Every structure is written in C-alpha cells, then in structure tokens.
C-alpha cells in the first residue's frame, strides 16, 4: 500500500515536470517529436534511478559518517557526471543497439536538473508515506526515483503528442515556437492539478 502511494504520488500528484519544475530544459528541448521524446524519457529513467541509488549510498556511507553533508551538492554532481560517462562507455561496448537509441541523449543528461534534484530530494526531504514523517530508506528511495522518472516520461510523451499536433496548426506569429508550447504545458499542468490531494 505504502509503495503504491509512493508511485502514484511521484507520477501524478507531484509530477516532476508539471508540479516540481525539474528538468524543464530538456523537456522543452526534445519534445518536438514523439520518437526523440520517448528515447530521452528512457535514458532519463535509467540515469535517475541509477544515480539516486549511487548518491544515496554515497551520502549514507561517506558523507553522513564524516559529517560532510555540506558537500552534497558538489559530490552528487560529480558522481552523476562520472556515472553518465561510465554508462555511456559501458553501453557502447555491451549493447550497441541500446547505445544507438540512448547515446545522443546521455551527455545532455548530466545537466538535467531532474537527476540532481531527485538525488538531493531523496536524502534531504522528509516524506509522510505510511503515517510518520521520515527520511527514505534505500528501497523506498529506489522506487521513488523510478516512479518519478516514469512521471517524467509520461509528461514528456504526452507533451510530444500535443506538440506534434500543434506543429500542424496555424499559430499566431508571436506565439510560434516556445510561447505556445509553454502555454500548452500550463494547461497540461492545470489538468494534473486535479490529481492533488488524492494521496
């Protein structure tokens, strides 16, 4: 039950793009076409989950015991950058087909604030799933990260669908491009607001 709550809350209620404003730049940048949007979502999904697990462990076994939590920001971003590089290299060797699909998105992900945002959130924010407020355990953190990235994919793919239709319509000149995209996201966010309070 508690796990279900985490998942629903992360995907719908606190959608990472539409409610938390994380990862907006790639969200606007690569949502022009459905195919690139789904590729990016997949890559983000992979990196967020992996990065959260690794940074969670680093925080728990390295930063906290030595009283170095003030180094969280710098430690996490370096770990994420190194991790993304490693994933890229490993993928290239192990699964060239997967690399073909995700490769071009991987370098972009280091500066996707969704990754760092989720990693920091997991170790600093208290959650009330299951009654009392507490910091997440590793299991919960992993599920939360995975569900959050699913939410990212959901928003991204839905939006790419809308945008493909937008491209075919006649939009007033001043609205063309980003402005109309932003306003459409706003309306989407309005719809997602309907989910708030269900968890």
């Amino acid at each position, binding site marked *: 039950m508690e796990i279900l709550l985490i998942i629903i809350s992360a995907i719908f209620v606190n959608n990472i793009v*539409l*409610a*938390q*404003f*994380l*990862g*907006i*730049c790639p969200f*606007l940048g690569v949502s022009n076409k459905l195919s690139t949007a789904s590729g990016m979502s997949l890559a983000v999904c992979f990196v967020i989950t992996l990065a959260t697990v690794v940074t969670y462990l680093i925080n728990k076994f390295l930063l906290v015991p030595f009283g170095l939590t*003030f*180094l*969280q*920001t*710098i430690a996490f*971003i*370096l770990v994420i*950058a190194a991790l993304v590089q490693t994933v890229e290299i490993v993928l290239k060797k192990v699964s060239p087909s997967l690399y073909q699909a995700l490769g071009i998105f991987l370098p972009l992900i*280091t*500066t*996707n*604030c969704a990754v*760092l*945002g989720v990693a*920091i*959130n997991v170790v600093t924010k208290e959650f009330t799933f299951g009654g009392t407020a507490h910091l997440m355990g590793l299991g919960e953190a992993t599920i939360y990260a995975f569900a959050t990235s699913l939410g990212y994919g959901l928003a991204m793919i839905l939006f790419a669908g809308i945008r493909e239709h937008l491209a075919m319509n006649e939009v007033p000149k*001043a*609205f063309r491009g*980003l*402005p*109309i*995209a*932003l*306003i459409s*996201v*706003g*309306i989407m*966010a*309005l719809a*997602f*607001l309907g989910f708030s309070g269900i968890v």
Partner: protein
Amino acid sequence: MSKFSLITKGLLKENPTFVLVLGMCPTLATTTSAMNGLEMGLATMFVLILSNIVISLIAPVVPDKVHIPVYIVVIATFVTVLQLLMQAFTPAVYKTLGLFIPLIVVNCIILGRAEAFANKNGVWDSALDGIGIGIGFTLSLTVIGIVREILGSGAIFGWKFITGDGMLAFVMAPGAFIVLGYLMVLFNKIAKK
C-alpha cells in the same frame, strides 16, 4: 564590443530567459512572488559572476579534454559557498528557495556562459558579462514574479491591494507556464519591432 553593451545586452538582445531560454527550472519554480524571483535572480548572479571570473582566469591552462569537469567543480564550489553563506546569514530565504539553490549547479546559464564567453575572454569582460546576464536573469525573474503575484495573490512585493484571494492558479504550477508563455509573446512583439 563596448564595455557598456556587455552589461546591457543581457537585458534585451541576449536576455537569458526570453531570448536564450536558459535556466527555465528556477525561472518557473521560484517566481511565485516578486520577492522570491528577485532573491533567486541575485543568488544565481552571485555564482555566475564568480564562476565567470575564475573560469576566464584558468581557461588558458586547463587541458581541453577535462575542461567541462573542471568548470563543473568550480561552479559547484561557488554554489556550495553560496549555500553555506545563505544558511548562515539569510536562513529564511534559504528555506523558501529550497532545492533550487543547490540546483544552480545545473543551471544551463552558468555553464553556458562559461563555454560561450568566459573561456575566450579576459577577466574584466567576463565579470561584466556575468553582471549583464545576471541582471537580465534577475529582472526577468522579478517581472514574472510581479505578474504572478498580482494575478495570484493580488499583491506587489508583499503589499496586498485587494481583500480576499487572487486567482490561485497563477501562484501554482500551471500559472508559471502560462505567464512565462504570454510574457515571451509580449517580449517577441516588443523586441522584434
């Protein structure tokens, strides 16, 4: 380019929010009121100016292949310094802006300016560029904050001019996207003339 135009270009021609469309996350997330937008803008400007200065100094000796990691370390250091200073001297502001202070690290404006400007220009010019872009970013955030605060809570900089509530949607997530979209339209109209 004259020194003066280095500062003014951030306002219109290379406005980071409306023209370059960089750093969208803090732009949308922290502009629930004019004051919050202003504070976030200033915090980003602090990191931007310092990182521009340091990067323009070290760029000539940094080997090409590791320049990105080096820049990220420099930027992350300044962000952590900012975090510590804010926690010590303005804890209330630090609490309001929350997660978006550490996230300055991945704000594309900072790395973007390092790559596009600071690593090929002198210290003085880079500092001015940081100030210019920083002011542009701060102003944009403040303007978005003002609009959202007026519509959403019927107030300007915390001073309430209506009784009761404003249109709440504008303080919440959807309002952020919609206000930014319309302001961008307005900006296009004015700037293209």
